[in-house]
């Protein structure tokens, strides 16, 4: 009995369980699949993000591989109105699994759980363009 239980737990951990047990319906992502495989990411995503956040915040390394920004961009789930849902919604990519396993995440108390809008990203792309800055200022004053 113990062995059976262990086996089932292992299955659950490896992400095979939910498929059998009618687990979370994980939304499809856009972009390239993780080279390490989904299984690896399911087990280690928090370690990767935790490690790289220190590299970026404290050491100023902007070339890190894993960032929450990229997670929420590729894994964005759109609502019926075509807009990406936030962590408030139980359709949010992170919540689908985290609700299922009852693990609370604090990331989105500070981080945005939705992808950055394209226009915002564009404004920051070219720092030197005065036209962009003028538009930017105009928007800021509105």
């Amino acid at each position: 009995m113990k062995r059976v239980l262990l086996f089932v737990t292992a299955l659950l951990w490896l992400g095979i369980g939910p498929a059998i047990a009618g687990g979370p319906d994980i939304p499809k992502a856009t972009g390239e699949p993780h080279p390490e495989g989904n299984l690896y990411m399911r087990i280690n995503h928090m370690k990767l993000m935790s490690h790289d956040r220190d590299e970026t915040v404290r050491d100023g390394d902007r070339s890190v591989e894993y960032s929450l920004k990229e997670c929420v961009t590729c894994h964005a789930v759109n609502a019926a109105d075509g807009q990406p849902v936030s962590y408030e919604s139980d359709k949010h990519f992170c919540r689908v699994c985290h609700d299922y396993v009852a693990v609370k995440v604090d990331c989105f108390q500070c981080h945005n759980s939705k992808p950055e809008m394209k226009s915002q990203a564009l404004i920051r792309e070219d720092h030197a363009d005065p036209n962009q800055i003028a538009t930017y200022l105009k928007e800021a004053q509105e």
Partner: protein
Amino acid sequence: MNLPALNFAKTPAEMSRRDLLKSGGAVATAVLAPGVTLMAFGGEAAAKADPGKRWGLLIDVNKCAKDCSACVSACSKENGWQDTGHPDTDAQWIRKIDLKDKETGREFSMPMMCQHCEDAPCVDVCPTTASFKREDGIVLVDKHRCIGCRYCMMACPFKARSFVHEPVTDQKAHAPRGKGTVESCTLCVHRVDTGGSPACVEACNVTGHGAMIFGDLKDPESEISKALANYPSIALRDDLNLKQGVRYTSL
């Protein structure tokens, strides 16, 4: 007024082995399989905060217009902080202050923000090392470690830091901020790391006032270093000897 000598530049002899190691070889990492990591040393220099640099600002108070707050609105827009209807406690990463010399009646205005001190009191007092100074002199709050005790706010002689009292949503991806943590000017670290300059400086230039110069204080050829070498400038509260990265002229 007592003008301390500016000596930000490091001679080659002062460049420690640690500095050299940091600015030198990059480390490439590849994950081959779960638990197996391939690390390769060398190649291009790592894109990290460079200890060979010291980012700073020079603010010309004479050029700063009294009725202009372009720097403040640009900062707010860039970093996503705004009024929440609580003027006593709302975050202010940068503010305009109006001053009057009682002796002469001269009235002027200038921006105040984190002064990015070399010997930052906020870093000294932080019990969790959340408040820290990067290798290139930018003083930041690591909100992953901040417990919201606000010691740093008490320690800062410039009232540069704010505590977030209200829940925040729709943050900028490059400037995460949330209730229960302290925050302040980051010198637009996300722009600086990609070769840009802070939003306030760009905004000031767009208005035509050009009161703010951003640059590397350790590079004697940079615009800011030349200006500092040629004209008198002061660090606020220089009696505290904090060696700020932000300095003012015509004050």
